[in-house]
């Protein structure tokens, strides 16, 4: 982009995402499997935490699975993903090895970040996963930089930038929005609105609670999406990505979702009622919802789904065992990767 970032040169002609019919059996079963893998993985992480095998902070993705998985369905190779600290689900959806993710939680040398990062800070160059970031909102600017890189290289890629309803109030989000639209960057901002930022509900923190409108004064289009419906996520994601990929600039998707568990592992949850949580689990659960659809459409019977379940359980059990028994890093590792050249 020799003329600087404001160049109006459109990005390389984007290949439109392959049209997928609602009833593509393999795709739907794939979604089911991925969501279940995340759910079971997170449940197991919660157990390991309870057993004292995972220390510190650990934010589970349970309830929000349809977002990472549905968006993954429309991602093209080379598109980037970046998110905050509620990141395990995104990493699994990106195809990262469950063993490496779980072993990072337990702080082992074989962890995705060699035990240096922990739950909130994992990365994978080979999966175009740019992290796991503990500082609320920071990833939004970084993700915008990924978008600018795509524009500069003219590579036809899109950056998918995930953040929460609480993060949506950070100032740097709006600095980023302005740059992204000004320079027509290929970025899809995905706001995972699970209605709470720790103990503060959206209503108590936001003057405009329809977060998809937050780009309005920057001329960034936005849409509200049922984030508990993996197909709705996929379809909205496809449109947004198409918009960004074809040189029209950023797009904002507000995914209405819900986290079933506490914010982190110690959360007295006094800010919402048990009934509220149960109601969502009972009526909007993304995995149950897809299961019903699969069965109704005759795409999978109970036996087929049970087989997937068993397979997923095996993967998770294996990851947990690996994370429990893998060796801890050598203390000398502390001083590596601080600078380009390790100093003793």
């Amino acid at each position: 982009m020799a003329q600087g970032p404001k160049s109006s040169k459109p990005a390389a002609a984007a290949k439109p995402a392959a049209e997928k019919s609602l009833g593509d059996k393999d795709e739907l079963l794939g979604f089911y499997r991925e969501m279940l893998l995340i759910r079971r993985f997170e449940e197991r992480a919660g157990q390991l935490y309870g057993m004292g095998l995972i220390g510190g902070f650990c934010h589970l993705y349970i309830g929000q699975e349809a977002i990472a998985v549905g968006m993954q369905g429309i991602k093209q190779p080379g598109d980037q993903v970046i998110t905050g600290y509620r990141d395990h689900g995104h990493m699994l959806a990106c195809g990262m090895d469950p063993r490496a993710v779980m072993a990072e939680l337990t702080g082992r040398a074989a962890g995705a970040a060699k035990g240096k990062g922990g739950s909130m800070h994992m990365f994978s160059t080979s999966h175009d996963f740019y992290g796991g970031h503990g500082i609320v909102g920071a990833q939004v600017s970084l993700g915008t930089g990924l978008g600018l890189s795509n524009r500069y290289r003219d590579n036809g890629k899109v950056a998918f930038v995930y953040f929460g309803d609480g993060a949506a109030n950070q100032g740097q989000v709006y600095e980023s929005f302005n740059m992204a639209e000004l320079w027509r960057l290929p970025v899809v901002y995905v706001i995972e609105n699970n209605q709470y930022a720790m103990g503060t509900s959206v209503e108590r923190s936001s003057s405009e609670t329809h977060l998809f409108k937050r780009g309005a004064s920057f001329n960034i289009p936005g849409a509200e999406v049922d984030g508990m419906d993996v197909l709705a996520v996929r379809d909205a994601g496809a449109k947004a990505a198409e918009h960004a990929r074809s040189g029209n600039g950023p797009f904002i998707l507000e995914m209405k979702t819900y986290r079933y568990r506490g914010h982190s592992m110690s959360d007295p949850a006094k800010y919402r009622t048990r009934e509220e949580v149960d109601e969502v689990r009972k009526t909007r659960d993304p995995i149950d919802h897809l299961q019903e659809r699969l069965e109704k459409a005759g795409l999978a019977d109970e036996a087929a789904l049970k087989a997937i379940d068993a397979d997923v359980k095996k993967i998770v059990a294996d990851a947990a065992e690996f994370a429990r028994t893998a060796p801890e890093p050598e203390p000398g590792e502390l001083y590596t990767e601080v600078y380009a050249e390790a100093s003793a």
Partner: protein
Amino acid sequence: MASMTMIQALNSAMDVMLGLDPDVLIFGEDVGYFGGVFRVTDGLQKKHGLTRCFDTPIGEAGIVGVAIGMGAYGLRPIVEIQFADYIYPAYDQLVSEAARLRFRSAGDFTAPITVRTPYGGGIFGGQTHSQSPEALFTHVAGLTTVVPSTPYDAKGLLISAVESNDPIIFLEPKRIYNGPFDGHHDRPVTPWSRHPASEVPEGYYTVPLGKAAVVRAGEAATILVYGAMVHVALAAVEDSGIDAEVIDLRTLVPVDIEAITASVKKTGRCVIVHEATRTSGFGAELSALVQEHCFYHLEAPIERVAGWDTPYPHAFEWDYFPGPARVAAALRRVTEG
């Protein structure tokens, strides 16, 4: 008097000040309805009302900037930054605005704000819940940086901070919120109720800013320390059997140079201890001060025990945290010479 944890003592300080001074108000992320992630503001909204203690959106730059504006108008806001690790978005406001408002308005406007924030490691918090950023503030003229190490001091210092006419960075060592952790992570933690400094008056009192405390008198060496590391230093003295004097600085800037000088001139040996990374840490300043003021009394090189010069890791918590063994080793080095 009542036995309080550091959390309860801090809560009591704010309760007292909300009651005494209508210009005091408290805000921050989850401090109101939820009572703070560490429950430091628990019950204050209920007791004093929504206008006195309230939740903000997530936005540290805005939170601190708003507080500075209120301070300029004449109010005395206390804001909480949920973890010191999240203070950096507000750093510009603290350095460029809060610290300099008095100077650049030639005294017309000031920023009498208190920024409370939990800091420090030992809680498996990894790089975004464990840092000790005090040197970023002690380096800035115009800011006062305070670090308590007991419930009694925490309350008295916080009241002094709120009453101060300057902006205060009030760093709360979260590892000792519930008990005086001494770095022996493999032993059960003592609760505050078994420590004499957990006896805290229920009403108003102050502990002056800028005054250190001799928490243990001794002859063999001086340990300059603050925050959670005060308890680690005491454990190291006990473990090593070396009769060191332990000085809890309590306020880092303005530092109590008289207390430091008196002790080091007496002992001739000095160990400086902090959790923060070593290079350009506050220990470097202390070391320079001791050298300038006590050079002809020193009988051994000054030792620093500090965090390693790396980001705070997820694994290796106890290799990273400067525990009593490292402090005791430094004590032996300075006294053997």
